[in-house]
């Protein structure tokens, strides 16, 4: 270590020397030191004011009592307060009049989208496309229990086949095969007939035999022409949409064991406004029906029907 004053600069060297190369010990500017002290003072204040020091079970709390969770809660409260007026309006507007108020409808669809992500995607999927064989697709124009806003709201509120809810959507297709109501041969005949209804098969001797069995056993719910019956949640057999599959095997399985899908009654878990917004969102997915267009709607649902209520 040989510290010396460097001739040209007048600055002292640090004393190291590597192959003749030395380093000047140029002093730092003093304001830099003050800046460092200021940051230290700031840091001490920060540590006192905010949660900072980790300890055994939990960290220090900070004098301001701030927490990130509390910050989130405050922001949520603020957002809720901001939305409160809109939510009240949506709640106070009869659902038939909702489509006539575009800004309310838009808000309802947006709110419904958020609620759907939390409550519905587990079964119906993030894109509301359902799962073939399990949960119906909500984007299409085929509705088991009705596709206008009021019917959707009713379905969400009371659920499907929910014991304990007096107004729940309910029906039960018999297990024709398992319970021995039809023989396997008869079931194959009915399958042939059902497939002719949607043009999947050409009429044959089997389908003619099946037509007779259909008229006796199935037409009560699915209708004589197979157009379905929404008061029973009986699907339309003439269209291209098959929740449980439209192949011979799939229809055979359905006739043998029947299906009875369930959905929770959301009135127990969500408030009325959220359910209304969910209905608006599901309705907006591209297949929602107008109040007049709903075929086979129960009589009580039709009083205020309007022509083309979509804006």
């Amino acid at each position, binding site marked *: 270590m040989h510290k010396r004053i460097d001739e040209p600069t007048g600055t002292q060297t640090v004393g190291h020397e590597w192959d003749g190369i030395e380093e000047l010990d140029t002093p730092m500017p003093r304001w830099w030191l003050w800046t460092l002290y200021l940051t230290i003072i700031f840091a001490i204040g920060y540590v006192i004011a905010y949660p900072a020091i980790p300890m055994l079970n939990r960290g220090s709390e900070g004098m301001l009592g701030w927490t990130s969770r509390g910050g989130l809660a405050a922001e949520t409260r603020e957002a809720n307060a901001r939305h409160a007026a809109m939510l009240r309006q949506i709640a106070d507007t009869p659902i038939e009049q909702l489509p006539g108020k575009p800004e309310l409808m838009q808000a309802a669809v947006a709110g419904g989208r958020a609620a759907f992500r939390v409550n519905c995607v587990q079964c119906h*999927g993030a894109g509301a496309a359902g799962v073939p064989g399990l949960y119906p697709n909500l984007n*299409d124009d085929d509705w088991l229990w009705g596709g206008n806003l009021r019917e959707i709201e009713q379905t969400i509120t009371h659920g499907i086949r929910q014991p304990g809810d007096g107004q729940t959507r309910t029906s039960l297709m018999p297990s024709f095969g398992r319970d021995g109501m039809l023989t396997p041969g008869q079931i194959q005949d009915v399958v042939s007939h059902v497939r002719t209804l949607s043009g999947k098969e050409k009429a044959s001797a089997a389908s003619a035999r099946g037509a007779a069995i259909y008229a006796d056993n199935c037409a009560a719910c699915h209708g004589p022409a197979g157009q379905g019956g929404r008061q029973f949640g009986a699907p339309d057999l003439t269209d291209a949409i098959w929740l449980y599959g439209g192949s011979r095997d799939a229809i055979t399985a359905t006739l043998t064991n029947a299906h009875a899908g369930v959905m929770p009654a959301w009135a127990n878990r969500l408030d009325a406004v959220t359910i209304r917004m969910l209905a608006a969102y599901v309705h907006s997915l591209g297949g929602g029906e107008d109040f007049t267009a709903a075929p086979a709607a129960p009589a009580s649902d039709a009083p205020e029907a309007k022509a083309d209520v*979509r804006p």
Partner: protein
Amino acid sequence: MSAPEPAGTASFYEKRKSVFPRAIDGRFRRIKWFWMGVTLAIYYVTPWLRWDRGPYAPDQAVLVDLAHRRFYMFGIEIWPHEFYFVAGLLIMAGIGLFIVTSAVGRAWCGYSCPQTVWTDLFQHVDRLIDGDRNAQMRLQAAPWGPAKIARRLLKWYVYLSISLMTGGAWIYYFADAPTLHHQFWTGTAAPVAYITVAVLTATTFVLGSILREQVCIYMCPWPRIQTAMLDENSLIVTYKDWRGEPRGSVKAGKSAAAPLGDCVDCNQCVAVCPTGIDIREGPQIGCITCALCIDACDSVMAQVGREPRLIDYVTLQGAEQEKAGGARQNVLRTILRPRMLVYFGVWCAIGLMLLFALGTRRHIDISVAKDRNPAFMVLSDGSVRNAYTVKLRNMESRPRTMEIGILGLDRAVMWSDDMPRSAAARTLRRAVAADQAAPVRIYVKAPAGTSAQAFSFTVRSLDAEGAGKAGRDEHRTRFDVPGDGE
């Protein structure tokens, strides 16, 4: 902290040595005066210039409209998705600095850098209130008394006023200047305006009145970068030691044994230097090449009747040449050299590309995001529906009606979510507000049996421009159908 350091040991920290540059007049000082006026005028006047863009757009010539994501510069309006224009301008500015640096050294530092301009301004304030260099030094050393306190308070008041005007002018670039000016002084402007002004006032005050040359020497990365870009053909402020040394006063020169050089060791070059360095020690990081020492030295040389330009803009190569007794280098030739031409060529090429892009860009745009979940939807009649979020952009400052069409997918029809399905057609019309983007949710339905294929959405404005290319755009996307399995 202010205790004197014991002699012989180096201190870890060094107190700032105050710089009190003496006033000087001369060629470069006048250039600096002129340029200071130009740069300050650009800064203060620009937001107040008006530019008529019709009733639907702001009439401020230069406006960074952060709230609406628009950037206006005279006849040019930039949307966020056209930010590459701004990126191109920044690249041009960067290469422009390369050009300037390799031609005339740190001219940016010496003349145009805001830190230099504002420091210069603050030093003029010092001289105006405290007097010139010697008076300032006396006042600095004087004990605190009523007179010193009064002068200091007056000076800080002026500093603060300049800082406030500096910080205050900045916000006018981000909103309509006259409106914001009125709002600001009536207390109705947005909090962010006051916060911005407060922060910029504080930084201007600290950087301009306290830190000054410390910014250039310790904080700014640019001197280091420039040092790497200088070469032997870059003009730098040079003390011609071969002419000046050995230095000595005129009196000493008469009695000296050997003849002395031209430098009379009057220290005027040090006295006028705004960063407080001695240029006679050679090129150094503290030299911002403001050339005030050239003015100072020239005036002294004129007084003692010697050749001017003992300190001068000289390149390293020129210095070698003159040292060896050669002629003064031709400045024009140092500027017109291959490296400069390459820089200039690149700079021009980027500029031309930007101009070309600007001239050929369309003021209508369609972009399509296809729904992927679900990718397709079978309807009850067996037909297939795909959903798209289509965004129409009207980049004209007037409302326009646009027609959306389908190119390909011959049997398909479409409808949007705000119209009845029964009105589905091959074209849709939408009114798009002036200078706005309009999102439309579109469903496209094709009959059963359609194969998966690519197709395009087209848009055409229903005005004179729609007939030509400038009023049309299209976006290619896909139509998906279910696979074979049931």
